[in-house]
């Protein structure tokens, strides 16, 4: 990269190191690198704030036409830094946890309605908050190293960061499958279902980056054509869930989580099927409360705009943090992230114990004087290309 002058905007304090900015001479492209490789680039509150500032500034800056977002190391971004949120909750400071989600969702909204193309290079792990920081953008480039998942139901949370918007817009009921089971998708599957817009072998990424740096346009068609030049049509592996869309559509289209499980179980009554059994198992391992609120969230999201989805998800996450119905989020984080015993004790412990009115609670107005609904920034005169992405 001899021809490129790499300029760290500032290296003094830690918050800026966590997002490295590259600005190449005489280029209209800004490259932002998530730089917390040890934590798999999990988004800290500082990183979120930094990205927020940068994205808003670039939108106004006529010298910026494209924003590239990538991660250092083997992850693009493994999610929001929920461990610190849980620490807050456990110290009774759950409102500062809520603050983290508020900022994160606002960033997701800006990305989802961004006027300029965001190109995310997903060369590694893309999970939870990492998906929120990329899927809402115009271009998502997967590679053979991509691993995508929305694992929140195993953590006692629900697929947030606007996932109820993009998961619900995947083909058929694939979004319900991905969101409820937390299954992992590779780059080829991401491309097939539309989570990725392109698949570029990782060996060609530096060439792609160099080519993008020469672009002097925000026209999505032009940028898409350039990425196309480096793209490949990957093969979907033999045992891919994407080859099971018929079963997924049949079962995950059911009205309730109970019906979904029941229909999956019926599929394996008289014939063995490893994939279905694994699917059932992952549903049984997840927090029952999470499953119920996640399903409803995805289904409401299917009929809502991305802004409405984020506002609703913020209400939901606030209820999760308040823990009125269930404290599964703390328990999930304890079992998976802190104690790592991987044996969460969900409460309520099974689906039958969770009534409709308990689920309703998560979607209702928050009864807390300090609570305020997510106030989305006004985004006027957006071109169609800024609104319709997935």
């Amino acid at each position, binding site marked *: 990269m001899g021809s490129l002058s790499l300029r760290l905007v500032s290296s003094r304090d830690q918050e800026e190191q966590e997002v490295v900015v590259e600005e190449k001479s005489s280029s209209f492209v800004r490259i932002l690198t998530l730089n917390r490789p040890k934590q798999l680039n999990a988004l800290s509150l500082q990183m979120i704030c930094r990205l927020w500032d940068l994205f808003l500034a670039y939108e106004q800056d006529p010298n910026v036409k494209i924003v590239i977002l990538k991660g250092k190391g083997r992850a693009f971004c493994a999610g929001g830094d929920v461990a610190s949120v849980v620490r807050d909750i456990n110290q009774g400071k759950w409102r500062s946890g809520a603050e983290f989600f508020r900022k994160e969702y606002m960033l997701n909204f800006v990305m989802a309605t961004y006027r300029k193309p965001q190109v995310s290079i997903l060369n590694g792990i893309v999970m939870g908050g990492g998906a929120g920081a990329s899927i809402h953008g115009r271009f998502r480039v997967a590679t053979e190293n991509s691993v995508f998942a929305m694992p929140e139901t195993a953590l006692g949370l629900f697929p947030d960061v606007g996932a109820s918007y993009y998961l*619900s817009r995947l*083909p*058929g*009921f694939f979004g319900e499958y991905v969101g409820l089971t937390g299954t992992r998708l590779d780059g080829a599957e991401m491309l097939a279902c539309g989570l990725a817009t392109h698949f570029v072998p990782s060996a060609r990424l530096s060439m792609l980056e160099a080519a993008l740096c020469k672009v002097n346009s925000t026209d999505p068609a032009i940028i898409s054509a350039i990425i196309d030049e480096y793209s490949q049509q990957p093969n979907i592996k033999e045992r891919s869930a994407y080859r099971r869309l018929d079963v997924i*559509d*049949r079962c995950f*289209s*059911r*009205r309730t989580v109970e*019906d979904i499980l029941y229909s999956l179980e019926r599929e394996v009554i008289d014939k063995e099927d490893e994939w279905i059994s694994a699917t059932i198992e992952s549903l049984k391992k997840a927090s029952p409360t999470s499953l119920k609120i996640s399903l*409803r969230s995805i*289904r*409401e999201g*299917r*009929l809502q*705009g991305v802004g409405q989805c984020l506002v609703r998800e913020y209400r939901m996450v606030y209820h999760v943090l308040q823990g009125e119905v269930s404290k599964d989020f703390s328990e999930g984080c304890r079992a998976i992230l802190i104690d790592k015993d991987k044996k969460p004790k969900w409460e309520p412990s099974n689906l039958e114990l969770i009534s*409709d009115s308990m*689920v309703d609670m998560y*979607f209702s*107005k928050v009864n807390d004087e300090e609570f305020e609904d997510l106030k989305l920034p*006004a*985004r*006027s*005169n957006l071109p*169609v*290309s800024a*609104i*319709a992405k997935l």
Partner: protein
Amino acid sequence: MNRAIQRTQILNGHLLSSSPSQSSSLSQKPCLNYNPPELTESYEFDLGEMRKLLDGHNLEDRDWLFGLMLQSRLFNPRERGGKVFVSPDYNQSMEQQREMTMKRIQYLAERGVFTGWLTSRGIESELRMLAFIDVLAIFDHSLSVKIGVQFFLWGGAIEFFGTKSHHDKWLRDTENYVINGCFAMSELGHGSNVRGIETVTTYDTKREEFVISTPCESAQKYWIGGAANHTTHTVVFSQLNINGRNQGVHAFIAQIRDAGNLCPNIRIADCGHKIGLNGVDNGRIWFDNVRIPRENLLNSVADVTPDGKYMSAIKDPDQRFTAFLAPLTSGRVTIASTAVYQSKIGLAIAIRYSLTRRAFSVTPNGPEVLLLDYPSHQRRLLPLLAKTYAMSFAANYLKMIYVKRTPESNKTIHVISSAFKAVLTWHNMRTLQECREACGGQGLKTENRVGHLKAEYDVQSTFEGDNNVLMQQVSKALLAQYIAARKRNKPFQGFGLEHMNRPCPVIPSQLTSSVLRSSQFQTNAFCLRERDLLNRFAAEVSQHQSKGESKENAFLLSYQLADDLGRAFSDRSIFQTFIEAEATVSDFPLKNVLGLLRSMYALICMEEEVAFLRYGYLSTNNAAAVRKEVTKLCSELRPHALGLVSSLGIPDAFLSPIAFNWVDVNSWSSVKN
């Protein structure tokens, strides 16, 4: 002078522009930009809470079903201006539309939408079913009608008229679409007058079979939904003739198709292309001495023994007959409710369009004015919106009394469902027409839905009881109530007529704004009108009778008052459901806007309904005050317009392109794609 300069500039532009390249000339200033109304409009109430109040029940289930339709190619999703819309392709031939409707039903059945519709009864499952019908009708009327025939008419007939053996034999297979049923009641010569149908069934004691026949052309079964292509079985309504004695109308099950072929002695013809609803295969059926087993008589009301004896628990043939009309009640409930949802679609589209489309400037060179900022445009759409809100509460009330029905409440349900079915469907046609015109030329495009819905929903004023006939029945029932109360000198009870027991309300001669907006005044005005019309109607009928006219004839001669009374009853009943809905709300911003809507509903009824002036319930001064208040209410509702249509529970994908970015939808680049 100004104009001359402007024209010169335009001409100059034409002559001097070197190349008419699109990017420079098409995207410059004088062109209109689409601004989403969400950016400029603000409202103070919570949209989710308002939707809950309007939809009333099963919101999560509704969203699930909307999602099921959105996620399948069968529902014809199209991307327009960056948004996906679903709607049937009405440019398909009648045959194609029918096949698509059937395929959609199959898809929904496979996903469990109809689970429990006939096999698990109870308030909860009935309400879910009613919610699903609302949602299906939002996508397409043919879809909901075809499903309605299967479950409410065919399934309902077996449920209501059949006994356990019929239930066991038919209901599960019906729910799973193993059997596809239809409902052969109407004939070419007899529609609303079911009692007069001419199909005849006799009993053959030797073979223990019934024999159904169509004795003449006017007895051919007509408009039978599903008969032309898809159904395998039908419920046949027929006179039952036992040993030469006519026992009146009874219902029988007959198979009409077997493995796709017509059964022996059945002739079927197509009703042909219609002005709408072409996804439903309406057919005509002739029965040429069709033999069916004795068990196929639906025998909850009456039975025939193997040796041919007629037996019935209900001695009075009139009462027997009334029992047979029960399934039509459920039909009227769903028709009333789905009609309101179509008005919602029309208004959501027309009002969203009017919040983004501009026309004419008020000052020279000034910006053009948003359609909904014209007081006249507000007056066209906002009262209809208030009425639609009121009728939404009315439909919810009707659904609730329907699912909680008891033998004692049947009469009330019959009267209320008749009145609401008529008024809500008439309101829908009127609303759709106004919305179509309010969208100008755009309203004429099929893809924009408003105009096309008129054709699809016109039938609602006719099927399950002609609206005019239903309204006469309402007045007749009220008169019976009146006579019963007066004769026995007992207070009025039922149909909401209890207000008749109280002193006659007085309308103040000076109507201030605050009086006009008080629910007490509004209630008084509606009650006064109903009370007086009921008195007048009773007096006129008895006057005719005293001159020697028969009761029936006296009733026919008093049709004008009957009509006025029917409407008075409906308006007052609808108003009451609004008051009740309002009372359940405590949130201030929500209560505030509901108050505006309720006043608008009450006052627009007073303004539009001639009876208020004709019979002097309002003085001309009063009427002028009402009229003035309506315009004030229009301007007060105007800021809430977007919020009010965003709470209607119709997802964006089920509205239409002009409700959103109509500039992009119509851009040259969208033509190329």
